[in-house]
């Protein structure tokens, strides 16, 4: 009996929950400027999230998936992506979309039930969020292949949850990415839950990072509540992919502090005792503690930042609420480049029946 292959999965963390470094921070991230910026983005994301829930509660937003507790993942990934890279996000990656330049009011619009929310003006080539779990992974392989075929030094970043790792779509996409060494990075936001299904009931694999071994490339695990670790390890993966060396999978260990969505009640299936310790691992608090200790971050600055972010979000919410509705007939206007006559007739019929009902 001989050994023909062997593999290891590594875990990386820099900032402990208490804000104390577990090891020296990577140079690129040690600089206070940078960390302050990342801190600000996480605070903004949380403000965005709180407002979304408030809008839902007051009946002005549809079902919404909260990112509470996962801010470091999105912000860390966004920090290491270049503008012309392409993001393929899952439906919970608002922090990442914001970091990519999608406007908060556009994200609200999407969750408010308006297609225009996916017509965002910022990162033009980024994909809309994938509401089909894992369905976007094959797209990421296609986007990355496009980059490779055109010999562009761009990277596709595909982000999905722990639940998505059970979908064959994700495996098939990772397999081809590994085969062709595509410039794509897969990131699992392992928030420990897939709706009411805990991570432990999703797979028998010791880590989700090792899913990449089946596809022939490296997987890494990081503390997903440590924005420094996320930025470093995902950053290395992005650089690796950009250099034409192929894909990597990064598993970010974090936690969904909220319900699955605003129409879910996690208390029915999740023990509060499990949630509490994760609050103590808050991705935002640890950076504040670190900045306070090492970069003289003051309460005034903190207060100012919160005000800035809340103001920004309030403006976005107002912009969202002020958006004039799409006329009903627009449901036909982006189906094909040119609407076939048969369907154009249906469009007319719809307008007619709306008119009639207006009348009577």
């Amino acid at each position, binding site marked *: 009996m001989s050994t023909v292959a062997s593999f290891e999965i590594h875990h990386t963390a820099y900032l402990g929950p208490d804000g104390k470094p577990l090891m020296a921070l990577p140079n690129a991230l040690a600089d206070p400027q940078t960390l302050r910026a990342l801190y600000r983005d996480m605070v903004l994301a949380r403000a965005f999230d709180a407002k979304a829930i408030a809008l839902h509660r007051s009946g002005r937003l549809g079902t919404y998936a909260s990112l509470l507790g996962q801010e470091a993942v999105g912000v860390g990934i966004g920090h290491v992506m270049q503008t012309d890279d392409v993001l393929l996000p899952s439906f919970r990656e608002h922090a990442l979309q914001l970091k990519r330049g999608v406007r908060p009011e556009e994200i609200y619009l999407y969750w408010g039930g308006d297609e225009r929310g996916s017509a965002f003006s910022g990162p033009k080539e980024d994909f809309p969020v994938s509401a089909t779990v*894992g369905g976007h992974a094959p797209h990421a392989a296609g986007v990355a292949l496009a980059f490779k075929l055109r010999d562009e030094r761009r990277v596709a970043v595909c982000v999905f949850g722990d639940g998505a790792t059970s979908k064959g779509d994700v495996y098939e996409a990772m397999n081809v990415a590994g085969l062709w060494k595509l410039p794509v990075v897969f990131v699992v936001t392992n928030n420990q839950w897939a709706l*009411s299904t805990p991570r432990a009931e999703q797979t028998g694999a010791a880590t989700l990072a090792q899913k990449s071994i089946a596809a022939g490339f490296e997987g890494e695990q990081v503390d997903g509540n440590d924005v420094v670790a996320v930025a470093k390890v995902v950053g290395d993966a992005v650089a690796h992919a950009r250099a034409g060396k192929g894909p990597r999978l990064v598993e970010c260990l974090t936690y969904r502090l909220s319900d699955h969505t605003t129409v879910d009640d996690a208390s029915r*299936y999740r023990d509060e005792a499990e949630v509490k310790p994760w609050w103590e691992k808050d991705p935002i608090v640890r950076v504040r503690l670190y900045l306070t200790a090492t970069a003289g971050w003051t309460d005034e600055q903190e207060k100012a930042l919160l005000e800035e972010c809340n103001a920004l979000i309030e403006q976005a919410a107002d912009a969202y609420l002020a958006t004039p509705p799409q006329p009903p007939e627009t449901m036909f206007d982006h189906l094909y480049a040119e609407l076939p006559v048969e369907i154009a007739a249906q469009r007319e019929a*719809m307008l007619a029946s709306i008119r009639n009902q207006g009348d009577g």
Partner: protein
Amino acid sequence: MAEHSLLEAVNLALKRAMREDDRVILFGEDVGVGGGVFRATQGLLQSFGPTRVFDTPLAETLIAGMAVGLAVQGFRPVAEIQFMGFIYSTLDQVINHASRLRNRTRGRLTCPMVLRAPYGGGIHAPEHHSESTESLFAHIPGLRVVIPSSPKMAYGLLLSAIRDPDPVVFLEPKRIYRAAKEAFDDDGEGAPLDRCLMRREGGDCTLVSWGASMKETLVAAEELAGQGISTDVIDVCTLKPLDTKTILDSVARTGRLVIVHEAARTAGFGAEIAAGVADAGLYHLRAPIVRVTGYDTVMPLARLERHYMPDAARIRAAVERCIASD
């Protein structure tokens, strides 16, 4: 006699079926502790334990394929797909395996399974959560396709679906999950899987629909009655096999047919019903067969969905057109 919503009826039927036959097992995403996103399986884990009610990994192809393996082995799997928008990953298993295993093996192996899924729009759900693609399944030989439109029917039809020796796709109109309560006994009585239901009788026009659209169809029928137009209203609770006789008999009396469904018009199941009547019932027709359906565009997100789905006014207008046109 207790009153139940359609959702409660589904839960009741599942419970009853599991009590009477321990080969019946239930699985899917979040059906266990979670009790299902709509609570259709609420309490069943507690009543029957984790060997008969369990969550699967997030993998629809697996859910359908695993059901095939369990069914062949003598279980009566009832697998849930959380929303119809995610059912497409099961089609390879449903078409290539579940629907034809009996035929492939000349009856050596059989596949008594039920694939349940909530379907349709109208609850302001997120993207991909409001589809109606029942006609895809209706085209597949070897399947049964069942869609209840009332609590009592949901109860009886689901029981029969679970007891049936062949694969059944059971679609639940989630828009009316909680719409109305109906009184019936939990007596274990199944409903036939090959019969349309006459929901209303009248001589001027035949109205045919199924699922949530029955609601608007019955409203329209009531309003039409107010205008002196009386209608037969037929509920196609079993799309496959289709009970064409009930429809033809009605058209023979009324001479007019209006078909209502929420799915996109082109190649929707309404087409099959119209085609059947245009053959066997042509000489009874006194007016064109009109379909009132969802449009041939993508089901819009929450804000515009109500404009997509047939409403009573559109149905009424169609019937009036039929009446006028002869």
